[in-house]
């Protein structure tokens, strides 16, 4: 048998084995395991989905939020796509060797411009891989903590070997005049130049050796691919294509077979969530921006996903093997993911937004919280808050009859929207209604509304907590009850627009309430006032000469994209707005969201609000830390004290500036 025939046979066998392993793993993971998950709602809006594929996979849009690693990945990705064609050529060449050792695929092996681009990309990939290795081995940033470093390094080495062997092989072929497209490969030509002095026979052996290395590592890579984080190469495309297109502020609910919400085991998740798990590349961007990770360190969204993925694999295998104990008896909420980790999430959306591949973290966290709530496993303070919400409709445990007490003595009197039609129905919210530190701000808001000539009213004692954070704390039944009561109260009122004080309220009213297609206009007060200033209905008589920084509330900014209105208002009032390093969609959460405000904070480490205040305190000349969320006032006023910045920074609600400037 000739060498070429043997080569064909070996290539064919290797291909079969590698493909076999690949298909076996991929089938097991993407078909057998995923099918055990719950059904996902139907996917629609395919135009938008395909657009996303182009932007987020093709253009790698979100990756550039971390610039250099983003660029490196861009080249690796495109290099991979382009060079997979050379791999095809190499395989075809091997398979056909018995008939024609110089076999070339049409176009792929014959089109010069393609060869030219490939040649350069091979170099770019080598450089990018070099940067990747440098990142992993030398820099080793915090975000990689907990990732599979060896796996990463191994695969980087694989790719590097594939690239180098390709370049050397091509270079030698050019030297040996075996490459029809040699003139299109300047890089390979350069590398070939290194071997020019060697006898042709030696070059030929090295060339053949490179071929085997190239192909061998490709096959190894193929078997490695579905087993670890590099499975994202396969799953990222469906993951981005089938990403959640609902508004960010709308939490999905999976009801299990017995009608209750809550995930207690892996198979209770939707298969779509499972796909997310396989797609995680362990890049740690989510971890890098996570307020919980950066304060208590008790939660890392990345580790959460990795732990879930491991459980999915292990449980999947155990179920397939019809085991009955072992990993199957491990509790999802407790042993796989710590309860503390689940409760530490502030639902700030920084992680979800940062993930280049649209993996959702908050959704599974809340699904698991729902189960913990069903089991009654929660912080005592949260338990009290929920009990209060159920009984009085507010978390502070105060009488619902006292909800509008803050209006007493206000002139003109605040209208009762239940009794007379109003243009603006003001949904005040718990903290703004009850908290002694905040009612003053609330009264100022009423004063501003009056001075702007708004025809507005409130629901008085018919208003209940909107339930935004109740839902995110995992108490779905209570959320439904609160929503029902609010909808009932709202249904009896005549109004055109709902305006809210609290961004959390704003979010759930806008995105989650069951309006049945009749959703009224819903505005945050900063949006409303911004519009009034623009239309000239609200005029400022004073120019305040304050230098301030503005903190974007998560549920106003990241969740609902309101970034400019508050800033325009501040500027209109004469303030100079200085931005913190993290602002806009990168704003760092105060730590109150998702029900965290009702839970005990474990002292002993920096709290998110303190980290944020230190960030603001580092800005020169800024006297005011401006917020637009009542929870922020509570959180940051405390943090200013505990960080010793009382004399340095004043925490103020935006409305205070508006009121002063009128």
């Amino acid at each position: 048998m000739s060498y070429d025939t043997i080569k064909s046979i070996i290539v064919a066998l290797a291909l079969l084995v590698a493909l076999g392993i690949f298909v076996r793993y991929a089938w097991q993971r993407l078909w057998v395991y995923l099918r055990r998950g719950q059904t996902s709602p139907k996917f629609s809006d395919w135009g938008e989905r395909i657009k996303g594929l182009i932007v987020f996979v093709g253009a790698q849009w979100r990756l550039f939020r971390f610039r250099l690693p983003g660029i490196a990945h861009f080249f690796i990705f495109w290099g991979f796509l382009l060079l997979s064609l050379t791999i095809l050529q190499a395989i075809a060449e091997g398979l056909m060797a018995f008939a024609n050792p110089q076999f070339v695929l049409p176009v792929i092996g014959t089109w010069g411009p393609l060869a030219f681009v490939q040649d350069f990309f091979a170099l770019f990939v080598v450089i990018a891989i070099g940067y990747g290795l440098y990142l992993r081995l030398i820099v080793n940033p915090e975000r990689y903590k907990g990732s599979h470093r060896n796996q990463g390094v191994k695969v980087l080495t694989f790719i590097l070997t594939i690239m180098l062997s390709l370049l050397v092989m091509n270079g030698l072929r050019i030297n040996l005049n075996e490459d029809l497209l040699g003139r299109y490969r300047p890089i390979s030509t350069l590398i070939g130049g290194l071997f020019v002095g060697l006898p042709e026979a030696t070059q030929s052996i090295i060339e053949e050796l490179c071929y085997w290395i190239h192909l061998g590592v490709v096959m190894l890579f193929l078997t490695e691919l579905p087993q670890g984080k590099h499975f994202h190469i396969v799953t990222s495309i469906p993951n981005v294509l089938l990403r959640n297109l609902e508004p960010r502020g709308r939490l999905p609910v999976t009801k299990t077979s017995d009608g209750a919400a809550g995930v207690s085991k892996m198979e209770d998740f939707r298969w779509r969530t499972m796909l997310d798990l396989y797609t995680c590349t362990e890049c740690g961007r989510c971890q890098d921006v996570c307020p919980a990770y950066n304060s208590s360190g008790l939660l890392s969204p990345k580790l959460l996903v990795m732990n879930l993925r491991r459980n999915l694999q292990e449980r999947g295998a155990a179920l397939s093997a019809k085991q009955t104990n072992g990993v199957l008896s491990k509790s999802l909420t407790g042993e796989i993911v710590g309860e503390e980790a689940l409760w530490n999430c502030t639902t700030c959306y920084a992680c979800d937004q940062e993930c280049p591949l649209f993996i959702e973290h908050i959704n599974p966290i809340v699904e698991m919280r729902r189960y913990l709530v069903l089991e009654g496993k929660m912080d005592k303070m949260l338990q009290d808050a929920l009990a209060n919400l159920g009984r009085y409709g507010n978390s502070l445990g105060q009488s619902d009859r006292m909800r509008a007490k803050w209006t007493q003595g206000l002139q003109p009197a605040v209208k009762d929207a239940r009794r007379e039609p109003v243009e603006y129905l003001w949904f005040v919210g718990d903290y703004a209604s009850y908290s002694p530190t905040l009612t003053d701000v609330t009264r100022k808001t009423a004063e501003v509304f009056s001075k702007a000539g708004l025809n507005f009213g409130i629901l008085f004692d018919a208003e209940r907590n909107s339930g935004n954070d109740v839902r995110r704390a995992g108490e779905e039944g209570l959320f439904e009850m609160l929503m029902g009561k609010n909808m009932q109260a709202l249904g009896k009122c005549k109004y055109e627009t709902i305006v809210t004080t609290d961004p959390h309220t704003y979010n759930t009213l806008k995105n989650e309430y069951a309006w049945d297609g009749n959703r009224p206009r819903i505005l945050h007060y900063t949006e409303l006032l911004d519009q009034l200033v623009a239309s000239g209905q609200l005029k400022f008589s004073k120019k305040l000469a304050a230098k301030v920084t503005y903190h974007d509330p998560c549920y106003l900014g990241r969740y609902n994209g309101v970034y400019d209105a508050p800033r325009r208002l501040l500027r209109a009032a004469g303030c100079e707005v200085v931005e913190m390093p993290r602002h806009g969609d990168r704003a760092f959460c105060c730590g109150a969201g998702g029900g965290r405000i009702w839970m005990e904070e474990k002292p002993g480490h920096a709290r998110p609000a303190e980290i944020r205040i230190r960030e603001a305190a580092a800005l020169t000349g800024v006297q005011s830390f401006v917020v637009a969320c009542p929870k922020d006032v509570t959180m940051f006023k405390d943090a200013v004290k505990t960080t010793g910045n009382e004399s340095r920074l004043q925490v103020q609600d935006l409305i205070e500036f508006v009121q002063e400037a009128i």
Partner: protein
Amino acid sequence: MKIAVPIKFVPDLVEELNIDSSGAALDTSWLRLIINEFDDHAIEQAILLKERGGAEVTIICAEGDGVDDILFNAAAKGADQLVKLMGSDAAMMNSHATARVLADFFKEIQPDLILTGVQAHNDLDGSVGALLAEYLGMPYVGYVAGVTAASGSVIARKEYPGGIIGEMEVKLPAVLGIQAAEQPPRYVAYSKINQVSKTVKIEERAISDLDSSGGATVGRMFKPEPAQRAEIIEGSPEEVADRMVGIFKELGVM
């Protein structure tokens, strides 16, 4: 073991309380009633005993606003039977009347152990537990924070000031006044209560002729003057310290 937990509803102190026109009772028109917090602990303790060693738990409450919800809540925690006493107003019965009504019922169902809140903030004639024990001829131990079942008896951990615990062995059947369960009453998710309310039935039991004798007769009720601002104690450190010691003594903490 059969455990019975009689519970009662009390005025919610979150609301402002007012005196009615008679001047001798609370104005009930604005009253919001909630479960007596000690009774909530008694339920929790009963459930804990059931979880540890098995028991059949019956919860009993006089009818009233919100009572069904609390009964379903208890069922969601693990209570087996729910009984509502009809024909009475939970807020109106004094402890003596309540204890008599309950005693009649317990003579029928013969529980081994009765757990009830050690007191309620509106008891003016003592707590139900001690009276009930006497009417049933059972022993009574109050201020209990933790119960362990033994054979034919229970070990009740009675709390004394300063954190001292007296371990009492109490022969069954017995009544215990619960100060605190071994763990705070658990939270029950709304969806669970909804589910239970569809499957569990509340047994209704009519009661007649209330006998309130033995209770205190209130001639007048009034609100104490609210203390507006702290009374500032003037003087030298020594004088102030003297006065403070006096205050501590008056309040019985020394």
